[in-house]
């Protein structure tokens, strides 16, 4: 029995002769051992325990984390302090391992970004001028830029001239390879602008208000005079979306396969393009919108309205997530910053009042920055590196580094792109390239804006050199990984967190539950073992990192106390009557009844508290 207990532990390693000599007198006894050798057919025998990894085996010192050339592992990665508090040993070690893996992955990613993805020379690849000599970047003309860049880049600057077709709207596919243009008088064309290959060109002979590519260059949606139509790559009409009446703006959410449109009536409509089912239509109650944009990181739709408000929508709520008064006039341009520093946090709006404002999505209370522009702004666009283009009458202005530096002052433009006697109706930066496409009354112009595009693309997300087979693969994978519309939330980190509140319960119901019937978190809280966020703050204070006042400042999460008896029929009746200000007998009677009830309740409470003594005896009933 004791032998069994001993064998549960690790077997001790065999002692070796110290000087390496074999003592000839020692012979192994062939007594019973727990590990038996297995004789094989070819006459040899193997001891299975010898073939496992020895307990004394070590990783060579060169492979130790601290000795790696990267230096990133010079200090060993430690798990979060809060994990140490977990009682369960197995869970603790599992979570600690996970935490270390995450941190290691983060470091690795940083290394990759630093070593592989960084621009070879210079900081961000923009125009550099000699500031001391009074040179300004915004004085640099397009012709000067195209003279100094390579032949390949020079070819990217082009103009397509269409006279008398109305103003043009433009849209790029996600990889920036294909371009769709639509004039307000019915001319639609899609083409691969790099190869110069035209996919389709159609004349619809009715007014067009917007054009958007769907998940790939194969399909595009056009907001026409009455309805939204979907065309394929060859310009063949595939669908007429009859539910989208009188559309003015469209957005396509590529990961959710949702086409969001809004029309003159002010209804925001979500249409699932993979199944063809209308998901929801939400009345904005704010009339015909003047602008629309999507946040590419949270799939929230931004609408700009005529009364100067901007509203944020998702298909899951009938009311806007956020509604803010952005301008003193109609909001006619919205753009969301997709760049690395912002990741969907910063939003730019422009209004008819001639002001451009930058908002921070973490705090909508006040704009981060605002400035006046002289020309009448009509449209905004953000580039992959965070440059903002402001398009308006007679030209486009491009700004950069808007979130840093002195944010009180009017920012200096990075580039000015004049369009004499024209108004920019649509500006779009080409993804993964240094180009800005401007749609105006005389066609479109593709202009060079050095340093605006994200240079390092990811082939698995948006492949610039996508082959036919890879596109096919992406189509199928995209559909398989289609995100459900319920997961569109303002807080993108929402998924995977614990929902604490258990709705629809009154205070009494919650209190009457036995200890056993409580949820796990409630039980832990009762035992004082819950892992509350306050504890975490205290820990941070101990480390000397957290600010002193932060602990008190964080508000406790309010538990909603739904009380029985509030908003009952009697009080509702009284409220209604009093609103009308009509005093009649029934109201007086009701008032008296309520007053008596209140008084009785009051005395009962006082007796219970011991403030007054309960009257007893025969006359007590008249008290």
């Amino acid at each position: 029995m004791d032998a069994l207990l001993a064998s549960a532990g690790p077997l001790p390693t065999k002692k070796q002769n110290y000087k390496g000599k074999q003592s000839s007198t020692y012979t192994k006894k062939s007594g019973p051992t727990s590990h038996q050798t297995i004789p094989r057919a070819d006459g040899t025998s193997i001891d299975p325990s010898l073939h496992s990894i020895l307990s004394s085996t070590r990783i060579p010192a060169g492979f130790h984390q601290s000795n790696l050339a990267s230096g990133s592992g010079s200090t060993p990665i430690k798990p979060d302090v809060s994990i140490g508090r977990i009682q369960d040993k197995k869970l603790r070690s599992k979570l600690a391992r996970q935490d270390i893996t995450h941190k290691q992955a983060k470091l690795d990613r940083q290394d990759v970004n630093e070593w592989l993805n960084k621009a070879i020379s210079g900081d961000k690849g923009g125009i550099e001028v000699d500031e001391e000599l009074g040179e300004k970047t915004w004085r640099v003309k397009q012709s000067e830029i195209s003279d100094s860049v390579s032949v390949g880049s020079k070819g990217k600057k082009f103009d397509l001239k269409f006279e008398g077709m109305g103003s043009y709207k433009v849209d790029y596919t996600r990889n920036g390879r294909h371009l769709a243009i639509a004039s307000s008088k019915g001319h639609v064309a899609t083409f691969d602008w790099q190869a110069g290959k035209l996919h389709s060109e159609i004349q619809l002979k009715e007014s067009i208000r917007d054009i958007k590519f769907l998940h790939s260059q194969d399909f595009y949606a056009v907001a026409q005079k009455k309805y939204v139509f979907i065309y394929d790559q060859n310009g063949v009409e595939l669908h007429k979306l009859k539910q989208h009446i009188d559309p003015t703006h469209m957005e396509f959410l590529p990961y959710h396969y949702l086409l969001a449109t809004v029309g003159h009536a002010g209804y925001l409509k979500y249409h699932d393009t993979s199944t063809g089912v209308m998901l929801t239509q939400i009345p904005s109650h704010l009339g015909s919108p003047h602008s629309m944009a999507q946040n590419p990181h949270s799939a929230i739709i931004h609408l700009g309205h005529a009364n100067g408000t901007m509203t944020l929508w998702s298909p899951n709520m009938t009311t806007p997530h956020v509604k803010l008064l952005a301008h003193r006039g109609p909001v006619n341009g919205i753009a969301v910053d997709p760049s690395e520093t912002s990741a969907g946090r910063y939003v730019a709006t422009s209004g008819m009042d001639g002001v451009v404002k930058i908002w921070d999505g973490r705090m909508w209370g006040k704009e981060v920055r605002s400035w006046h522009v002289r020309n009448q702004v009509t449209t905004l666009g953000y580039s992959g590196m965070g440059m903002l283009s402001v398009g308006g009458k007679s030209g486009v202005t491009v700004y950069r580094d808007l979130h840093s530096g002195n944010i009180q002052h009017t920012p200096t433009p990075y580039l000015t792109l004049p369009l004499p006697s024209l108004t920019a109706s649509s500006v779009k930066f080409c993804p993964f390239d240094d180009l800005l496409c401007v749609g105006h009354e005389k066609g479109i112009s593709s202009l060079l804006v050095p340093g605006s595009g994200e240079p390092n693309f990811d082939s698995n997300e948006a492949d610039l050199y996508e082959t036919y087979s890879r596109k096919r693969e992406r189509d199928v994978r995209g559909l398989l990984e289609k995100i459900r519309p319920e997961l569109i939330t303002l807080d993108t980190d929402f998924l995977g967190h614990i929902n604490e509140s258990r709705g629809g319960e009154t205070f009494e119901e919650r209190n009457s539950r036995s200890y056993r019937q409580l949820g796990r978190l409630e039980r832990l809280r009762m035992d004082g073992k819950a892992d509350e966020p306050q504890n975490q703050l205290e820990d941070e204070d101990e480390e000397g990192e957290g600010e002193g006042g932060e602990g008190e400042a964080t508000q406790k999460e309010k538990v909603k106390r739904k009380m029985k008896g509030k908003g009952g029929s009697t009080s509702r009746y009284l409220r209604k009557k009093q609103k009308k200000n009509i005093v009649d007998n029934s109201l007086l009677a009701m008032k008296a009844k309520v007053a008596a009830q209140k008084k009785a309740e009051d005395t009962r409470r006082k007796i219970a508290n011991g403030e007054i003594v309960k009257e007893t005896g025969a006359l007590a009933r008249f008290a």
Partner: protein
Amino acid sequence: MISRSLDDHMPSSSTSPHPLQRNLAPHLHPFQKPREYARALTAVKMDRMFAKPFVDALGGHQDGVYCLGKDSRRVGVVAGGGGDGEVIVHSLTLRRPLLKIPHAHKGMVGGICWTSESHDGQRGMITAGKLDGTIKIWRSEAFAPGIRDKELFQGSEFASGFGSAGHQQHLDQAGAIGENGLDMDVDFDEEEEGGGLNLDFAKRDKLGENLEPKMVYTNKNGLNGIDHHRTDSVFATASNTVQIWDENRSAALSNLQFGSSLETVNQVKFNQSETNVLASVGNDRTMCLYDIRTGKAERRIVMQFVSNDISWCPTLPTTMLLASEDHNLYTFDIRNLNSPSQIYKGHVGGVMGCDWSPTGEEFVSGSYDRTVRLWNRESGKSRDVYHTKRMQRVFDVTYTPTADFVLSASDDGNVRIWKSNASKKLGVVSSKERQAIEHRQKLVERYSAEKGVRSIKDRRHVPQSIHNATKLKRDMIESRKVKEDRRREHSRKGREKPKAERKKAVIVEQK
């Protein structure tokens, strides 16, 4: 200005793969979590879609099958003991009986085990009668068809008894963990093509009828269980005491019992690592540990309910598993017998049999409620539940030595083969496919706490009767617990302390 060269982004030749450029910066990968979640949801759905655990039913028994004998040295063979005393040796690869012994015992077969070493070139199978109290050792070449070569098989009589003994011995030892299984398949397939199938069946039946046991032991009392020592030629039986027998002697080596207590012992099992230690479960709700070197009972615990079966973990020498009549299974670390180290709840009938997987990470249990459940050692909830319309009460279960399959013996006279992992693909898996499978598993594991994934992952369709019984049982336990809570609330403080579930299982530990 960005300028890209086509040389970097286009394949160098028509056959080379398309070059990929990666940028792991998070702003280029929006909706990371929701997309991963969508992938996890697809993965868990695929897992359930491909869950087809039932492989085959091995018939041939006239009565129900009440015990299984797994030969831990060979993969493809299992013996089933019937209620009418018939013993059938099944081949799992051929899915048909290798040998039928119609009247092995009078009345029910209590237990079957296999000898540890080959003897005269023949595998030995030991069977014990539940009613007639006899133990019989059977030896035949037919138990090990893989170890005969082709000409021998075709030339000699099936029941020849002794072929070339030296050759046989050599093969028998090498045959540990099914090395010649493939040859066997080929042999039989060719034979089937020749149309000798009927002849084969007739020969087999005749062989079974004429087969005589090499050794017969008699005991006064019926035998409920039997287990063989891992290496030595010693085996133990369970009757009203635990008896140790030698294969070469006619009388019992020793009788083991705890003190002077007399009880019916239900099952006895040898430890796999410390091979001289054995454990038994008895009708007095006891579990007792013995050492055959000292010939004494070492320790005993008395539990709340009687246990039907016992199994030692093959990788953790101190861990044992008890299948209890109270619908639960318990694992004990024998260093601490005060309380079980884990309680496994899920069955709604008494658990009749249990067996560890060879890895020691998982085990299987069969119950009187007509289901087979699979468990992880570390979690108290079952990983999976298997049932079919035709499977009746399960009396014994076992893992195959490769851990790929699970066998169940039930009342309806069939031995059923199940996959131990319901959705696992049988056969060769390419490395690419394996990577995808592992990726999916990891995703499911990561999001298994989320409701949408969890509900699909944990959802099992069970027969209406079991569903209802589970619900009823849950309600009963719940209300009992709530009542206890309320009673505690209204009694003096500290008088009625709640007792942990694990502490309730063991009543007393005796030394």
